[in-house]
């Protein structure tokens, strides 16, 4: 569970989100929506402990987020970021196995680790690419590898920044379906611009408005055309939600 109290999200000195209060619990599938530049990615990185926060409080299962060590944090929270680094050469399988670092730190992968790694490879349909270098695969395939890595990490909280980017349409549905299944026992938070997927799969939404205000609640209560237009500062027709 992540609890946010009076959080102000800053990008350098610019206030992006003010005085945010929210509680995210296991069993919920959250979507965060907002116009470009409203602070969605900054908020996700802050929630994942990759960025520090100066004003407000974030607790994970009752413990202040910034007091967790890197290992403890990675055991609790897995994050998929938009930026895809490739760095030096490694195979798809090695890359996914790195997701187990927080659990097996300096030991070799145990049988339970291998089970999770294999399950992640199967879920992301990467069987044939297992031994391929990550520098030889396409952008969409690399995205699948990154998602498989956080699946192997098997943290109780999974945060995904625009997970549908680079994926083909059929795989988008498959991924959202998988995340929905995972949200039965875990907390899933995604940032996306695809409102149809949000309506179909997510239980809760947070809309970030341009002035730093937020609308938070159940998808069925919040995802209406008035709120969407307010969030996007536009005047879209009602049928875009169909």
């Amino acid at each position: 569970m992540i609890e946010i109290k009076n959080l102000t999200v800053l990008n350098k000195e610019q206030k992006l989100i003010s005085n945010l209060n929210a509680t995210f619990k296991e069993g919920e599938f959250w979507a965060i929506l907002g116009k470009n530049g409203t602070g969605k990615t900054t908020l996700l990185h802050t929630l994942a402990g990759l960025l520090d926060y100066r004003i407000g409080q974030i607790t994970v299962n009752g413990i202040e987020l910034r007091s967790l060590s890197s290992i403890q944090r990675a055991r609790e929270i897995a994050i998929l970021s938009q930026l895809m680094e490739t760095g030096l050469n490694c195979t798809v399988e090695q890359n996914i196995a790195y997701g187990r670092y927080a659990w097996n730190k300096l030991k070799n992968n145990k049988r339970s680790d291998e089970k999770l790694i294999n399950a992640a490879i199967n879920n992301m349909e990467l069987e044939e690419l297992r031994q391929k270098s990550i520098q030889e695969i396409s952008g969409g395939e690399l995205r699948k590898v990154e998602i498989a890595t956080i699946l192997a990490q098997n943290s109780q909280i999974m945060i995904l920044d625009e997970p549908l980017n680079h994926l083909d349409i059929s795989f988008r549905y498959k991924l959202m379906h998988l995340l929905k299944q995972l949200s039965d026992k875990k907390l899933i938070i995604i940032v996306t611009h695809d409102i149809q997927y949000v309506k179909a799969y997510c239980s809760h939404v947070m809309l970030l408005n341009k002035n730093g205000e937020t609308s938070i609640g159940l998808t069925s209560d919040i995802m209406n055309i008035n709120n969407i237009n307010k969030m996007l500062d536009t005047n879209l027709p009602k049928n875009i939600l169909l």
Partner: protein
Amino acid sequence: MVLLSVVLVISLSSGSEYIPLSVFWNDEQSHSLKEIIYTLRLPRAINAITVGALLSLAGLLIQNLVKNPLADPYILGISGASAFIQLLIIASGFILPFWLFILCGFVASILSIVLLITISSRNGLKTNNLLLTGVVIAFAYGAMISLILSISPLSTTKSMLFWLMGDLSFSQLSFLPLILLIIGSLWVFRYHKELDIMARGDLFANKCGVDVKSINLTLLITASVFTAIAVSMAGTIGFVGLVVPHIARLLVGNCHAHLIPISAIMGAVVLLIADTVSRTILAPIQLPVGIFTALFGVPLFLYLMTKRS
């Protein structure tokens, strides 16, 4: 290790005069030949092994740290500080005991590292800041070294140039650097798994739970101390720290569990071969070892690269 042992035997036998190692089990042979090996060739070979392995490991760590395959241990100005102080001592005409001369270079390097980390980590240790600050500091030392060379009398210029190109001819038998190398290598090896993940990208490693900031700082300090020991002992020997880690990668891939020991061994082998050639090719004239590290290493690197591709 077999390769290193073979090169070591050849190195101890070679010089102005060929001395077969059989002198050690043949009492009738001249005592003075054993003396040459014990007092001249063995200290020099041990220093070549130590300095080569230290530079290669430092290069591997620095390349990983700044995520730049063209980085070498000297890019952060660590060698410049040592060279500047040591050239200043040579130019001033002070005759210091050799251990004190080495210590002065080492202390200058360490102070330079402290300056570098203090300036570049004011808003957290960022590799780009580190690289830029290091390069700028290195330029400053370069300018000061040029100034010393320009105003020094001709009689001292040659020994200064030798020192700048790397010189193992002052070697004295001391196992301390070798012991530091072994301890340091084991220390670096502890982080082999983290280094594998960090090579994939710092953000990626951070997400996986690697404490990137503290490991980067630890490895920066380790690489800097390695470089400081190497340059204070033998001047600025080029090429080893830049290319030997790549040679090791071409031989064993990117897994640091293999890369760390192979880099150290290959660094030792390359420098030992280069030093043996530098003191035998025009014997009794001794040439700066830095010339031969490049002359020997470049074709080896090009051969391995062509073979791999």
